[in-house]
């Protein structure tokens, strides 16, 4: 029996069933880790039920504190959270948080939504310098973040009693200011309840309204991170390759041996995640978000529809957002390049070994069938893997495979574990709000946030914070049987160790450490 495609979440694909395939089914080691995660999630949920049932005064008193202390001894917090507690953290998260892929550099005023085109007076009051917005744009200092995917939100899009909205944010890189991080948020455009339908513009000078607007953006960002970054890119971008591997690459094929450690669990995990987590509103993932399943699906699709694999490649994405060469401190970009370079060196040497000449690529029918499968609309449905209809030669093959290894392993790990760390700081980083905190003249952000006790995000974070395997560790994999690859594999592991040291050194100088691309925290592929 082989795998067939489930296109119900088009343009994404899943396996329509789980095939009893020893290579695809998780082994006992994996299952035990996942079960441990589920147990942790259950303990968290149980604690929150008990603590949430306590009256407020008891919860904050001796009994509540004792209960919390016992809970934390059993379930230590997930490290690496950046709580959205201040402007510097808010700005930092755009470049080193759960969603580092929405912020873009503004090249002209037209790149900014109309409401964010601040006047000279507004700029002066916020930055205290004479530079106008146009001047700052010309200097390359202005960034914007728009949540176009969330623009379609209506009341019907949301789960009962939950609130999520889109918004737009204006940032300026201003090293002349005495800020902890060089990028400063200047203004947020939020939806409002105004009868004229106009949005509200909020700045850091607006006190509680600014904090509320910042929180709304943080919630919007979480939805894009979960649905577009983690799901659409981290999982679904490589899913066609995982399925095509099993349908088109015979056992013993060199490419299968290369890719299997990186794509081993995708088919199973994506199938289960779709059915149990994403397909319906009561799915374990969707239920922790603010929107219905239908709306969440639309958000996830938004990044993918009409785009090819080549357009979504790492460097292409950076170029499109004007951040490929930008001097701004951008840990996602800078650390990812280190990891990618290590993978690229390894993959290049593998290609040289597997395909001594470009002609040998041309003659590999299985290879071409594999990539054709990936791109076919009725199968993998991922167009534009190569510049032409087929891989042109060794260089393009190496480049494409390195890209695939990056998305399937390091990128997914970054997205997945950054999310669980983010969700750990549940009070400061709620997954959804209970209402629009700007709806009334008097802002009550605490009420709009609700308490973490009544949301499933903490349990979900702990249930899914499961690590398995390590990037560059191919123990037991077929690829290690080739003596000629022993040295390149060892070099890969050494490269990754050196990348680790570089990132650790960088983190000592950064506003906050960015840990989610440390090679020691990355896996070969999707493991949950």
């Amino acid at each position, binding site marked *: 029996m082989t795998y067939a495609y489930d296109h119900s979440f088009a343009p994404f694909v899943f396996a329509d069933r789980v095939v009893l395939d020893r290579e695809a089914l998780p082994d006992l080691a994996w299952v035990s880790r996942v079960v441990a995660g589920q147990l942790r999630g259950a303990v968290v949920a149980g604690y929150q039920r008990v603590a949430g049932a306590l009256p407020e005064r008891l919860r904050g008193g001796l009994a509540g*504190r004792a209960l919390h202390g016992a809970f934390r001894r059993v379930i230590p917090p997930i490290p690496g959270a950046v709580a959205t507690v201040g402007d510097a953290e808010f700005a930092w998260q755009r470049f080193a948080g759960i969603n580092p892929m929405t912020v873009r550099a503004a090249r002209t005023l037209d790149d900014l939504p109309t409401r964010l085109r601040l006047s000279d007076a507004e700029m002066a009051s916020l930055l205290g310098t004479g530079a106008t917005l146009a001047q700052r744009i010309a200097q390359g200092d202005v960034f914007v973040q728009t949540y176009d995917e969330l623009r379609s939100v209506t009341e019907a899009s949301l789960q009962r009693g939950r609130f999520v909205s889109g918004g737009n944010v204006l940032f300026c890189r201003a090293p*002349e200011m005495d*800020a902890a991080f060089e990028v400063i948020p200047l203004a947020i455009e939020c939806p409002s309840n105004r009868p004229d339908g106009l949005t509200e513009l909020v700045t850091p000078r607006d006190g509680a309204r600014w904090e509320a607007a910042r929180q709304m953006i943080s919630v919007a960002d979480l939805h894009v991170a979960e649905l577009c970054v983690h799901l659409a890119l981290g999982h679904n971008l490589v899913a066609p390759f995982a399925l095509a591997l099993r349908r088109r690459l015979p056992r013993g094929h060199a490419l299968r041996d290369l890719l299997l450690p990186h794509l081993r669990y995708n088919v199973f995990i994506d199938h289960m995640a779709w059915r149990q987590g994403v397909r319906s509103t009561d799915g374990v993932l969707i239920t922790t978000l603010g929107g219905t399943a239908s709306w969440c699906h639309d958000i996830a699709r938004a990044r993918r529809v009409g785009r090819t694999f080549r357009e979504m490649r790492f460097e292409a994405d950076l170029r499109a957002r004007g951040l490929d060469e930008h001097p701004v401190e951008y840990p996602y970009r800078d650390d990812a390049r280190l990891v990618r370079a290590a993978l690229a060196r390894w993959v290049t040497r593998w290609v040289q070994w597997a395909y001594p000449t470009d002609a040998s690529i041309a003659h590999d029918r299985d290879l071409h069938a594999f990539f054709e499968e990936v791109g076919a609309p009725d199968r993998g449905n991922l167009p534009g893997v190569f510049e032409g209809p087929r891989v042109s030669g060794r260089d393009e093959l190496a480049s494409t495979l390195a890209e695939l290894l990056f998305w399937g392993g390091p990128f997914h790990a970054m997205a997945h574990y950054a999310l669980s760390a983010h969700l750990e700081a549940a009070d400061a980083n709620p997954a959804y709000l209970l209402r629009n905190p700007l709806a009334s003249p008097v802002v009550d952000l605490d009420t709009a946030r609700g308490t973490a006790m009544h949301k499933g995000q903490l349990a979900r974070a702990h249930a899914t914070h499961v690590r398995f395997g390590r990037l560059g560790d191919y123990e037991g994999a077929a690829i290690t049987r080739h003596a000629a690859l022993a040295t390149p594999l060892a070099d890969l592991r050494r490269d990754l160790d050196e990348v680790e040291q570089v990132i650790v050194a960088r983190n000592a100088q950064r506003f906050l*450490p960015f840990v989610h691309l440390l090679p020691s925290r990355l896996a070969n592929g999707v493991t949950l």
Partner: protein
Amino acid sequence: MKTWRNWLGNVTASPHDLVTPASTSEVVDCVERASRRGERVRVVGAGYAWSPLVPVEGTLLSTARLRAVRRVDVERQQVTIEAGATVRELVDFVTAHGMSVRSPSMFMGLSVGGLLATGSHGTGLDAATFGDAVTSFELVTPDGSVRTVTDVDSPLARALLCNLGALGVVTAVTLQCRPAFNVQEVHAPADIDDVAALIPSMLAENDFVELFWMPPSRRAKFKLGNRTSRPATPVTGRRHPSAGDHFIAGLSPLFPYLAHLRPILDPLAQTVYDRIGTGVRVVSAPDFAHYNQAYPRCISSEFGIPIERAPEAWRWIHGRLRRYGDAGARPVSLIVHARFCGPSRALIAPSAGRATCHLEVLSFHGNEHRHLFGEDFDLVMRSRFDGRPHWGKEIFNPAEAASGYGDNLGVFLDLRRELDPRQRFLNPFLRDQVFGLGRRLRAAPHDRRDAQRTD
């Protein structure tokens, strides 16, 4: 992750690490470790501040084990003590050596470091903040080095007198004490309508003046003190409250629920009020200064205003609270309290550069009307009376809290930036709300020799 809360529970934190070093070298280790991890550091003493100075998600450094007295020089009337020592430990020690502390806080549970961090004070025009008596600081800077600051007129020393924990960790100080003395203490009731007019004469005629009023009573009370060579009579229940005192204070969590039971509540509150003292007697300086250690669960806001504005400000508070009372609200359910101090050398203490009236309003925790008056109080004290909020008490408008210091604030922030360019010793409350650093230019350093006391 650990959890921490202040004494009242209105401020909580969940730092990644809570460390309690026992020596200066251990403080250095903690600071360096946090720096390697890229973590912010905040220092906590006894945890009595009502404002969110302490919360941090990185490393919370407690001075609870830094309590040693390192040196005493009776001849020069100086003591060197570590920053985690409490006021009680300090006062007991210096008293045993025939000395007394200048301008200590009333409550003895506070830490020496906490007093310095917040510019805290006692009462008496011959003293300013507690920190103004410091002749030498030992400071662990954010980069882990240890500095001894002895030039008390230097900008750094003046910054350390009220440092908000933003300059590093003060691990020890040398204090200039004075010979122990006794105080003739007089509790003089006054009709509330006469109080404002009496303040100038009370200040002119007495060494120490405090003023108490429990709204909506018609009677206020001056607590007056004058140095005397007459022997002191021992007073029980002040520095060492009885079990009964603690019991009544322990009932205070119930008070918000019993607001309608005025006939029961008012006598209980009156008990707290009476604990301040009555009549005339000669007491030791510590008994005069530290008259109530059984603190009910309350929350306080305080502003330092120019002393000459005190009568006008008092009239305003009285009038405003009477209007609230007429409307059935009682936002200050405990006490309105005034103390009077001399000008401080500190850069950003409320009494920086001017003799100051410290006006405090206290309410039982859970008072539902408190916020209404609090914002009112904050706005009027700042805008009409040139007031500066006490850093350790509840601050209703943090964005304006530092607005009354003129050039001194710039000097302080320059020093802060020099010592801690990566802002490791700030939390978002200080960084974003109080200092608004994201909206300040990294200006050219101020000439610190010319840093003017704002008088």
